[in-house]
């Protein structure tokens, strides 16, 4: 029987690393962009804007996630190869 253990391992590792990295980067961005904190007033949550630095870092993370989506599209669409 011919089982390609090497590509199996490669696919497994790539999946775990990619999933954790992409989810981590985007979550970091969301954490930064919603870092202003919020207070509850009568049931509705009022959020304060994040600091300027947090805003820049947050949008940078979201931007990187966007680039990763473009890379995914590049991989999916065969015309780009």
């Amino acid at each position, binding site marked *: 029987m011919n*089982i390609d253990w090497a590509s199996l391992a490669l696919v497994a590792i790539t999946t775990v690393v990619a*999933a954790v990295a992409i989810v981590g980067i985007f979550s970091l961005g969301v954490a930064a962009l919603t870092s202003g904190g919020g207070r509850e007033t009568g049931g509705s949550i009022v959020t304060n804007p994040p600091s300027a630095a947090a805003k820049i870092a947050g949008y940078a993370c979201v931007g990187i996630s966007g680039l990763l989506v473009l890379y995914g599209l590049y991989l999916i669409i065969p015309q780009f190869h």
Partner: protein
Amino acid sequence: MSTTLFLVSLVIITALFFDFTNGFHDSANAMATSVATGALQPKVAVLIAAVLNVAGAFLSTEVAKTISGGIVNDALVTPTMIFAGLVGAILWNLMTWLLGLPSSSSHALFGGLIGAVLIGAGVSGVNFSVVVSKIVLPAIVAPVVAALAAGAATFILYKMIKRADSEPRAGWFRYAQTVSASMVALAHGTSDGQKTMGVITLVLITAGYQDSGTGPQFWVVAAAGLAIGIGTYSGGWRIMRTMGKGIVDVHAPQGFAAETTSAAAILASSHMGFGLSTTQVCSGSIIGSGVGKKLAHVRWTTARKIFYGWLLTLPAAALVGGAAAAIALTGTLGLVIVFAALIAGALAIYAISKRAPVSSSNVNDSADVTINPEKTSVSA
């Protein structure tokens, strides 16, 4: 009409029918979590998935040169065996849909083909070591790897963000989830859309209607793309409910982690030469998104039921495919009988599904897919 033309027409119609069931079976893979979290309205979700599946079908240029990738000896496969294999695959797809079980359409197709080839060409026609390396092993690897990756991603997400399930954070994750789900849908179109085109093209070549070595004709691409698109749009709501509500009650951050993992796994597997089933990857990711979240409840009874379904997919489809081949190989009358049985079986399953229907309007109302109407459908 000559016998050949009759047979070829029958195979094409059956192949397009299979493509349709493939679409509505796999609609949930991309969209179940987005529907469950309310990121997308059910009808909008399936419309996006359908459009992306059709787009994917048109984008795919590399059409499968072999039907089975070496699982059966392609030189021995006749159009009648392909027809019988498709019948087995369609009936298994409809049966699992009735029970609300996500199961791999490709594995159903391989199972049907194996059964048909066993009857038509004998044991030597099936390459059992390839069955193990390309179907059995990936069926174990796919859900485990996806669950591990999605579990880790979900765990880290909830560690990094406090109260990720509440606004305004959940809103961000709903957007992100929609994007990853769309990637899964597009990738699905490029891979599964071309499977049916490959089958039809090979049958046309075998019957002498098309030159060997040429690609699919435009009408084949259009018909296959349309069939999978209509199938996707029809939603397969029974499976959608199981994947969105039945395994884990998915929240937007979990849905985002699950769909991102699925997209990563599908792309990694298709570019690194170890093919994994989209359905098994997506089911594993959803389980992982439940395992990785503290206090989340994974319904293992449902997960186990799905796993048993996967174990049965190959033998069950093979059984039907074999029986269909035994009848169809007797001649034109046999072909007609098998086709009539397929239509009758499909209508019967559809009629049974109407006893306890699941549609876009009630997909999120319950976590269970039942065959008999629930006695207490009005909840207190």
